[in-house]
């Protein structure tokens, strides 16, 4: 007993030190996850790496760099209850059939909303110059990578008629694992100049960037809102939509 006591004391001291190290690591990781400054360029997806040289050149000429401003990128880490009310009064109501669309990626590939039937879809309307959209991008990427592709799909639609080069530059910068689609309207826009909404953007009642829709596996609107959103809320809505469908 007399011999064991000092050993026990050392073990408890070591355990205390271990708990302290864990607390420090958690604190450092939590601080490091703050998303206010825009993230550095991510590794582009395989599709973006193999994009046509002309598109790559045009995207390089855009000089894309994510915009930011104070207060941006903070709500993503908060709980669902931190979400703010939607600003646009024209968002489609729950239960409405999500307007079908057929749009193209900057590389010219076609994507239809109907392609994702049977999955819960997170539909994001964005602009490449929009700081809130840039703040959301790495969060959406992480969420898309962590959810089962058999049940969930992510699609971004450019909401201000930007050109293929700007959209490709944005998609490549963030290394997004889901398509970003062109929705051309008038006037045309780009990373340096806001354009007008395209027809699909108009049909979804988009009035702010980003706007999010969760579409259930039957193609009905399950939830919609605009502005940056807590990651947990988007995730929860997607889960609920997948279960409802």
């Amino acid at each position: 007993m007399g011999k064991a006591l000092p050993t026990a004391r050392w073990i408890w001291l070591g355990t205390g030190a271990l708990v302290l190290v864990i607390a420090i690591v958690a604190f450092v990781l939590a601080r490091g996850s703050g998303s206010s400054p825009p993230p550095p360029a991510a590794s582009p997806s395989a599709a973006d790496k193999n994009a046509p040289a002309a598109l790559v050149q045009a995207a390089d000429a855009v000089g894309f760099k994510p915009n930011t401003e104070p207060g941006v990128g903070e709500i993503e880490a908060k709980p669902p209850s931190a979400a703010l009310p939607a600003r646009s009064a024209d968002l489609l109501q729950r239960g409405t059939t999500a307007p079908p669309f057929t749009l193209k990626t900057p590389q010219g590939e076609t994507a239809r909303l109907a392609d994702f039937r049977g999955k819960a879809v997170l539909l994001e309307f964005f602009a490449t110059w929009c700081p809130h959209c840039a703040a959301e991008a790495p969060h959406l990427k992480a969420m898309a990578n962590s959810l089962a592709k058999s049940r969930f799909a992510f699609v971004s639609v450019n909401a201000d008629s930007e050109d293929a080069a700007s959209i490709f530059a944005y998609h490549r910068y963030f290394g997004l694992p889901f398509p970003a689609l062109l929705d051309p309207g008038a006037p045309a826009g780009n990373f340096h100049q806001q354009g007008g909404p395209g027809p699909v953007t108009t049909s979804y009642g988009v009035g702010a960037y980003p706007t999010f829709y969760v579409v259930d596996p039957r193609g009905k609107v399950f939830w919609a809102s605009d502005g940056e959103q807590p990651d947990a809320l988007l995730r929860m809505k997607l889960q609920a939509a997948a279960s409802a469908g």
Partner: protein
Amino acid sequence: MRASPLLPWIGLAVRLIAAGIWLVAGVAKLGGLTAFRQEVAAYDVPPSGLVEPIAYGLPFIEIGLGAYLLLGLLVRPAAGLSVALMLLFIGVQAQAWARGLTIECGCFGSLSRQTVGLGSILRDIALALPSLLLLIWPARHLSLDRRLLGRSDAFAPGGAGR
């Protein structure tokens, strides 16, 4: 009545199962910390300032618990913490279920994408049983507790389990 010589080995198996549960849960979460943070936030229980420290600290605590149980170090306190954590998880899931939230449990990271509900609660109750057994009867066969501190194995014939 003579105690079976197999009992210490059964106790060791219980301890290794409890250790395995925590190690798998912790390592699986480390593989997707961002997703786990989103899952913790989705419960809407901790204040927003605590979501990230919890999400980034819990996997390491789970791995630490698993390692302690694996090595048989401070078996009873580790088992006590295991049971307390499991009760906390069960309570948090029960309130989410009662509120009708459709969220992922987040219990085993990307290894299991179970939605919170009766199934996940019953599973956690079952997973708490090995730790509860160890809390009552600390299994110290092939343990550091026994080697370093001279503590007895509650599963051994005549073991007091102090």
